[in-house]
């Protein structure tokens, strides 16, 4: 992974000093809360319902065990002993005292971490495929480009006061595990017919109250032009994006209102002027950054592990874990292990300090010291020998982290909702908890198969409900929470926005309604191999709507 040199260290220390000065001015009353707000947001500090929240950047979701241990110690010393992994691969602490924040930032700087640009109307933490560098289907590792983009976008003097937040995601495989088409800029690293590296560039995707799938502006942008092209897109957006209405300020609205052709023309004109100049990626700089992400020293192993196969045969619990939480690795004899943060009846994405330390130990012992955070709010050990996975499983079980539900109905994405968030209109965590209790039976979950439920507690869609196979949106009417269901959304390479199936359900009804949708699917699928999404795409919403609303007339 990337390691700081003296320059990087100085940069982060200077930023901590700057923020410490801003906090001191707020605490002394020199800054009002209004004046302080954009300053603290730029450094990941939110004022939530009950306390300040600190969101820490985990660039492209990559952590070392040392970093994860430090996060655990912050959870213990400054929070209530746990943290929350987010859909942008970050970690947030919900119970932080403002006066502690500069000291926490100092501690983070000690392990090459920070909270820069985890909020505010700027370029946010760059996300990437959580299986990067490990996945069997990868054309190229997206992390070096994510790191180049992270550096370029850090305190960019031109793009710190954009009309609205701006999110980038990078993948290097045809299977999209980072939902790039729901981002302001989504990049897919690929090779052209000559073998040269470049990017498919998607612009203008986003969720929120006006969900849009990004447009593909370039099928193949040469590698060297990455920053010049991104700077061109950002400049057009900074100058032309709407600033009169924050709900229409994202780049997706600009692309939509300008029209794809005219928008592309504006970007191309700007790009033509920037191309071939200071921002061109020199090959040796790409190599220098790329070297940080070189593969660890994998052993030469047989593709099959007897130990692993025996555990699958003799231990049904391990077999279940292996079928859902172990993914194919590009190197024979290795596997990618997903650590579910979705145990029955718990808030999705939460981990205790003790659990973080357990994962850090496993990464150090079995996994080349690497941990990933997925946008689906789980943790990943990207490089584990198949021989070691049974032992990893036992250790995870002891830590309460072996839930074998990756990609299943209880692997729910949820925003914090009204329990924490000042923007929320309804609670979302309790709905996620109740769903996970309703579907707790593992045989049933495995029989249902691949199914992504995503829950947002307001129209801002932080829980990605628009791209849930089953999406749930919590709203409020006359003091009562109610929940709207969308069906058929997907954030992968065939990106679609879910369709609203009908009127909403009360908090008391929503879990039954989801169960009705799932039972309907089980009744109409052609075989257990036909996933919920495939079945929905085949039959459309009619059978589901009928099942949900027929009884009510």
């Amino acid at each position: 992974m990337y390691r700081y040199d003296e320059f990087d260290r100085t940069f982060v220390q200077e930023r901590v000093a700057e923020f410490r000065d801003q906090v001191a001015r707020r605490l002394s009353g020199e800054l009002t809360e209004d004046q302080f707000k954009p300053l603290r947001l730029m450094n990941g500090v939110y004022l939530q319902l009950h306390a300040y929240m600190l969101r820490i950047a985990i660039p492209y979701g990559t952590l070392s065990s040392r970093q994860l241990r430090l996060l655990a110690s912050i959870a213990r010393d400054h929070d209530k002993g746990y943290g929350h992994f987010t859909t942008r691969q970050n970690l947030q602490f919900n119970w932080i005292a403002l006066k502690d924040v500069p000291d926490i930032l100092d501690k983070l700087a000690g392990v090459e971490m920070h909270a820069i640009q985890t909020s505010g109307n700027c370029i946010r933490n760059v996300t990437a495929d959580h299986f990067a560098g490990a996945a069997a289907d990868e054309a190229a590792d997206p992390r070096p480009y994510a790191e180049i983009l992270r550096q370029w976008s850090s305190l960019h003097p031109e793009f710190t006061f954009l009309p609205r937040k701006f999110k980038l995601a990078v993948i290097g495989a045809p299977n999209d595990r980072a939902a790039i088409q729901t981002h302001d800029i989504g990049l897919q690293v690929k090779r052209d017919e000559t073998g040269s590296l470049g990017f498919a560039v998607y612009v203008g995707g986003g969720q929120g109250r006006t969900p849009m799938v990004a447009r593909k502006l370039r099928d193949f942008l040469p590698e060297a032009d990455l920053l010049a092209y991104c700077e061109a897109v950002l400049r057009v957006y900074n100058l032309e994006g709407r600033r009169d209405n924050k709900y229409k300020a994202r780049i997706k609205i600009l692309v939509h209102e300008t029209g794809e052709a005219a928008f592309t023309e504006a970007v191309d004109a700007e790009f033509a002027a920037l191309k071939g100049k200071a921002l061109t990626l020199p090959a040796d700089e790409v190599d220098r950054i790329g070297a940080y992400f070189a593969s660890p020293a994998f052993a030469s192993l047989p593709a099959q592990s007897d130990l692993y196969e025996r555990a699958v045969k003799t231990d049904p619990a391990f077999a279940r874990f292996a079928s859902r939480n172990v993914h194919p690795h590009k190197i024979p004899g290795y596997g990618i292990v997903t650590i579910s943060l979705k145990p029955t009846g718990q808030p999705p994405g939460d981990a205790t300090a003790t659990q973080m330390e357990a994962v850090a130990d496993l990464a150090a012992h079995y996994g080349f010291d690497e941990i990933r955070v997925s946008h689906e709010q789980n943790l990943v050990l990207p490089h584990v020998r198949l021989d070691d996975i049974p032992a990893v499983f036992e250790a995870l079980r002891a830590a309460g982290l072996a839930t074998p539900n990756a990609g299943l109905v209880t692997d729910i994405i949820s925003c914090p909702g009204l329990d924490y968030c000042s923007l929320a209109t309804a609670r979302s965590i309790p709905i996620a908890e109740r769903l996970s209790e309703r579907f707790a039976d593992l045989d049933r979950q495995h029989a249902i198969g691949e199914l992504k439920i995503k829950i947002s507690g307001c129209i801002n869609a932080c829980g990605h409900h628009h791209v849930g196979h089953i999406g749930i949106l919590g709203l409020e009417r006359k003091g009562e929470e109610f929940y709207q269901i969308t069906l058929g959304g997907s954030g992968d390479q065939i990106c679609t926005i879910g369709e609203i199936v009908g009127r909403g359900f009360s908090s008391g009804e929503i879990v039954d309604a989801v169960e009705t949708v799932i039972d309907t699917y089980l009744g109409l699928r052609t075989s257990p191999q036909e996933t919920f999404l495939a079945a929905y795409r085949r039959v459309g919403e009619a059978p589901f709507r009928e099942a949900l609303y027929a009884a009510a007339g």
Partner: protein
Amino acid sequence: MPLFRNGRFEDDDWQIPAGDAPLPASGKVAVPKARFLAEREALRGRNAPVGVLLTAGDTLDDIVPDLPRLGLVVISFPKYADGRPYSLARLLRDRHGYVGELRASGDVLRDQVALMLRAGFDALDVTHAGTVAALREKRIVAVRHHYQPASAEASETRPDPRPWRRVSAALS
């Protein structure tokens, strides 16, 4: 209004007539873009430098031909969170090679000063008392190490052979 220029507070040598007030007979004068376009010929005939005032939503297209002759461009920030002037400043410096004074006015606050200087502004029209005091007393704490080239190349150094790293001089 205090003018912070070239790293210190200086007297303003430019006159900016209010509204449609007649132009002073002599001396440096700057007018809003609309007036500049309307009175371009008369302004060209003056025996002293001329400047243009822009605001955040303005475009540069119709003044580009005049830039080599302009001595001052002022860009106003309607509020500090409006980021458009940064892009305008960079276009003026990098795209159009404007070398005259580039002044930020309006909601100019201490926490944005370092960004403004990097975007190509070299003068700040400061009204905010706290910012004036912080600049005077050299109390501005800002990041000096940068990951991207911007529009202050002449005043920044390269700390190592990496293509995009820059270090700016201390503000205080």
